[in-house]
């Protein structure tokens, strides 16, 4: 083979490899991403049925209840516009506490309860997951608008 042909072979192999990798990566991605929804969106029925997604907001005060088995906990998550009850079996992260931001990943049950497989809490005092911060801001803005229109009526 001449040098030119050899180079062409290399380029062809490289392109084929990149193409295969990209196709594989994107196909696999479809089944491995979890969309984020705010409690208001969950209440509006936006999340697809029977798919894993994430929900985030603040843990409502005085809603954290431990079930009989000692491992399952129930708590409510809110964006100040709607509330989603969450059930989780296992050990909660260290920084989980009422009134703080959390993100839970799992499925929505037919009973309207969100069954979480994983709960993430903030990592330090002033950190807020960006999705939760956005959610609260949106709800806040909408809430303010609602309040103003009400006062006008």
């Amino acid at each position, binding site marked *: 083979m001449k040098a030119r042909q050899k180079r062409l072979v290399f380029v062809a192999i490289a392109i084929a490899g990149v193409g295969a990798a990209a196709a594989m990566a994107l196909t696999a991605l479809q089944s491995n991403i979890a*969309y984020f929804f705010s409690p208001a969106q969950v209440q509006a029925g936006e999340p697809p049925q029977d798919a894993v997604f994430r929900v985030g907001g603040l843990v409502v005060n005085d809603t954290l209840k431990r079930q009989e088995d000692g491992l399952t906990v129930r708590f409510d998550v809110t964006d100040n516009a709607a509330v989603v009850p969450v059930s989780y079996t296992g050990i909660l992260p260290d920084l989980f506490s009422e009134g703080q931001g959390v993100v839970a990943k799992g499925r929505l049950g037919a009973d309207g309860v969100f069954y979480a497989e994983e709960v993430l809490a903030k990592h330090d*005092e002033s950190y807020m997951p960006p999705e939760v911060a*956005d959610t609260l801001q949106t709800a806040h803005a909408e809430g303010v608008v609602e309040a103003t229109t009400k006062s006008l009526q």
Partner: protein
Amino acid sequence: MIPELGHVALILALVVAVVQASFPLAGSLSGNRPWMAMARPLAYGQFAMLAIAFAALAQAFLTSDFSVLYVAENSNSLLPQIYKFSAIWGGHEGSLLLWVLLMSTWGAAVAALSKNLPQGVVARVISVQGMVAIGFLLFMLLTSNPFERLFPVPPEGRDLNPLLQDPGLAIHPPMLYMGYVGFSVAFAFAIAALIGGRLDTAWARWSRPWTTVAWIFLTIGIALGSWWAYYELGWGGWWFWDPVENASLMPWLIGTALIHSLAVTEKRGAFKSWTVLLAIFAFSLSLLGTFLVRSGVLTSVHAFATDPTRGLFILLFLCVVIGGSLALYAWRAPEVSEGGRFDLISRESALLANNLLFVAFTVLVLFGTLAPLIYEAFDWGKISVGFPWFNKMFLALAPFLAVLLGLGPAARWKHDSLLRLVRMLWLALALSIAVLAIAALPGVDHGNLWVPVGLALAAWLLFSHLILIRDRLKHKQGWQAWVADLRGNGRSFYGMVLAHLGVAVFVVGVTMVMNYQEEQDVRMGPGDSQELAGYRFEFLGAEKTPGPNYRADRGHFKVYKGDKQIAELYPEKRSYLGGGMPMTEAAIDAGLFRDIYVSLGEPVGGGDWALRLYYKPYVRWIWLGAIFMALGGILAVTDRRYRTAKSRVTAPAGATAVGA
């Protein structure tokens, strides 16, 4: 007074950096020798200024001077002395100061250890480092000054994040940063070569040891981070594919590609422009990592409080560095002649394939890390990419890499034949197929195909490298010959073998822990017992124990194998007095072949606790593999070739390309 002194030192460091970035470079282009000669003193001056600034901040921390805002936010008078010191890099401003200090250390090291390099090259390298330093120092002085004062002075500091009050995390950031900024040397060499228009084998030989040293630090830094996450976060995981972890992995992957590609450039004069590109990207990804960690654009279990203006600054800086160096590359690289032809079956081809796989994996990790941003930018929704995706990508590429890793070092430069390779390696091939067959026997297998594949790949790596050693020693008699080889030019060879065996050890660890680990969340009361993976855990209850700056609930476990007690474990749940943050401190009985791991969840009433039990077979092999790789790197850089090479390269700037 002293914090102001530190502030002034920072400003002076910026002034030095500006001079450093301009005069030596201008001198090297116009042939002005006095200007070029300024490079070394400036590099030392830069280091001295930053050392003063760092010492000033250290003094504020050690004396708990809470009139300094950064100290008040990250320290506490109750903190043990050692953590008062490590608290310097516990927050954003201080880690940045550590970052520039380490970068100037590398600069000073280049100045001190490059006595035999042509003056023009040294001038350009140090100038490029000065440019990078300008960016970081401006960033610090404009957005994150660690010496800002606070009035009124608070009586007590906010405390260091308890997660960071740990010996592993005290040394993890300096190691990681040494690696990150170490790539700035490879970057500076590459840019300097592009500016000078001379990319030759001598250039590759100069930057090779520096790149390897940076890679060693990064390897140790990442392994420390993984080990820390394993015992400190209390979920028993050793890698989470978290954005912050990915940010450190990507420069490592490109850095690994770079040290292999530098080998080709040095030995065969091929891959020149490719090597330069890798050097640019290794450092750019280090900067991108900083941006991802500091800007808070991604949700991460590791993310700390962030500030968007800082993110914007780093993003701009990133654009200037990447854009500028790629523009320079586009302008200069075509002038670089590609030397060193080679055949399809040759060591060059194997190393090229190695490079492509590393780059492909980096691109995938980058894509997975940035996918949430891409989706949000296109308004496709807010997503997170689960770690199963990353695992799949890793498993899709890693086996090819492992197969190649056995072949590459056996292949000859330039031209080789398949037949010769088969003749040389058939025994390794046969033995690894035997491992595959035995591990796949019914009754042995756990039902997962990856176990036999992983073990066979590890065996392939082990045996193919043993054959390499045998062939090398074939003509040498006795162990004295071997010692002589190790003293002489053999170190880089044995370093390579050791690093590659590290990969084999790592593969075994990952295979075993991923397929045979067991975990259980349980509720236990005093006197309860629980079985897991053939071990019996007996819980004897938990009691309150005070610590130096925290209160803890301390659990007591006895672990039995059969009737024999093999360990007593004391996991803790701490509450820190400074900030009131709770912290799980897992208890681990570590062993070469398995870890037993207990972490306390929370009290659930009546002396009962929710807790987590783990059995982690071969988990230590993951970090052992990293240690092998780092030791291999150390062996390679101490090769006599580099020492003698230095004394050989004394010719003036024009005459170095010949004969290398």
